[in-house]
């Protein structure tokens, strides 16, 4: 290779190398609020830093452009359906886009919108730069307990400790490509995660999740002992809730792990439990669930749950239980999906008329029409797939 050619290559690559170094340094210096994990997370997966591209499209529905990628960021302005916008960046998950548009008075407005309100046909999020901003403007949240919950990222950074859990599980005979569901009727919902195995998956703009879908879909169990209507954090450990496949005296959790030998368990309890159980006793059950999972070499991914605001007592109870989940996740360095925070942007917070079950946007995993911005189960599917993608890349593929 001749020297002039080398100089040209270096000159072209240098700005991108400097940009990558700057971004990595910014992440390392980011302030750590008291409620975020105290342990050392693995270095963030090297998010492909694409060259900044500007993609022109339009809004499919009237919506507000906000100052940041979250419900708590102040709205800048409302724009109607059909507004021409230019996409300049996305958040990590890809469900928020940084856009700019020009108003009728030729004012350029730049801010964030939900991806689900943008026409994304033919657009792949993998081609869009990630601009890593906090998922919430915590300063705008006056209630300190709510602020603590908003501080928690929507999707987790994977702790180094999970690699050891995975390795231990593999040595014990667990299956790297098996994920199981643990929870109540929201987890048992046949439209939650299960369709990646039973129905065509249409990821729409979330193309970067395809490899993860292909990795986990084939072995996804159709039935789970641990995902049952009426199950709560206590009955998870009651052998009488076992199925015919369980051994005498075997808890549903132990039975599930024995039957399927998973590497990951996606856990969500809460919507029923807040109505019947004591919060501190519930903490004991969550701790037991995490401990038994880790001992079995299974990575437990905890999930906060969405709640309504219409009943103040239940809303307070939900907040209390969700903060317990955050504390337990921190205590054991296990991943936590903050579905509660992400669902604040959804109609009725992604919950149906009964106040318990999440809304459904169709019978399969489909993000082609912005379902993840409208329906609770669709958002839940997206966040779980994203987290599984992180686990696959950072832990499983490296194991």
């Amino acid at each position, binding site marked *: 290779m001749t020297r002039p050619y080398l100089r040209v290559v270096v000159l072209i690559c240098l700005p991108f190398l400097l940009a990558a170094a700057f971004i990595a340094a910014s992440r390392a210096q980011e302030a750590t609020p008291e409620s975020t994990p105290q342990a050392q997370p693995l270095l963030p997966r090297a998010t492909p830093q694409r060259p900044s591209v500007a993609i022109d499209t339009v809004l499919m529905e009237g919506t507000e452009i906000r100052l940041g990628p979250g419900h708590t960021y102040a709205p800048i302005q409302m724009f109607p359906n059909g507004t021409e916008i230019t996409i300049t960046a996305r958040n990590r998950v890809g469900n928020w886009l940084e856009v700019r548009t020009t108003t009728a008075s030729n004012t350029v407005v730049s801010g964030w919108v939900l991806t689900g309100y943008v026409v994304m046909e033919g657009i792949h999020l993998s081609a869009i730069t990630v601009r890593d901003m906090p998922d919430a403007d915590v300063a705008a949240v006056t209630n300190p307990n709510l602020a603590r919950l908003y501080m928690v990222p929507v999707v987790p950074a994977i702790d180094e400790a999970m690699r050891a859990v995975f390795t231990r599980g593999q040595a014990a005979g667990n299956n790297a490509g098996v994920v199981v569901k643990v929870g109540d*009727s929201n987890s048992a919902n046949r439209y939650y995660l299960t369709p990646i195995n039973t129905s065509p998956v249409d990821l729409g703009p979330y193309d970067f999740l395809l490899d993860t879908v292909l990795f986990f879909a084939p072995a996804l169990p159709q039935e789970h002992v641990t995902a049952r209507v*009426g199950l709560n954090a206590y009955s998870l450990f009651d052998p009488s809730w076992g199925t015919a496949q369980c051994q*005498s005296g075997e808890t549903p959790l132990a039975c599930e792990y024995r039957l399927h030998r998973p590497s990951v368990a996606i856990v969500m309890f809460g919507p029923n439990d807040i109505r019947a*159980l004591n919060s501190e*006793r519930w903490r004991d059950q969550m701790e037991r669930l995490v401990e038994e999972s880790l001992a079995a070499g299974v990575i437990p991914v905890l999930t906060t749950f969405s709640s309504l605001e219409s009943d103040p007592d239940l809303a307070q109870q939900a907040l209390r239980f969700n903060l317990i989940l955050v504390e337990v996740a921190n205590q054991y360095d296990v991943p936590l999906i903050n579905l509660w925070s992400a669902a604040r942007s959804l109609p009725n917070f992604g919950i149906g008329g009964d106040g318990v079950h999440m809304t459904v946007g169709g019978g399969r995993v489909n993000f082609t029409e912005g379902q993840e911005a409208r329906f609770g189960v669709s958002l839940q599917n997206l966040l779980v797939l994203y987290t599984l993608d992180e686990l696959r890349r950072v832990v499983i593929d490296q194991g």
Partner: protein
Amino acid sequence: MRKLMILFVLMLALLMLAGCGGTTDSDSDEANDAEDARVLTEAAGAADDEEADSSEGVADDAAAAVEAFWEAKVASDADTLAGLICAEREGELEMQAASFASVEASLEGMACVRAGDEGDDAIVTCEGHVAALYGTETREIPLGTSRAREEDGEWKWCGEAETAE
């Protein structure tokens, strides 16, 4: 003629004596035999009942304790459950009391009987199930087989057991 009359009277007397004596004796014997048989039968029956009571009585207590356990568990009645769980399983009290807290639970067709023993424990099998209603969906949870243990004169539920053969 006179001799014939005397002979006739003697024969009549003999007949009368034979009938009274023989009849009385046979009746008495039969009566005695019947009485003996009755007494023996009753005695045997009483012995059987006693034997049966001696096992079914304990079994009733063991089975009754298991039934009481299920009733309290379905009702999420921690106070009652506390007196129905053996010492070895006391740590499960909270779990047992809360297990059905998220559903409307009821017992259907419960009938528990002692199926055998395992050491000092009674093995109790129960027909029937818990009907756990959530919304419009009902899940049937079989009552299965339990272990009961006598502590301080009281039978208590002491865990699940393999179904007795």
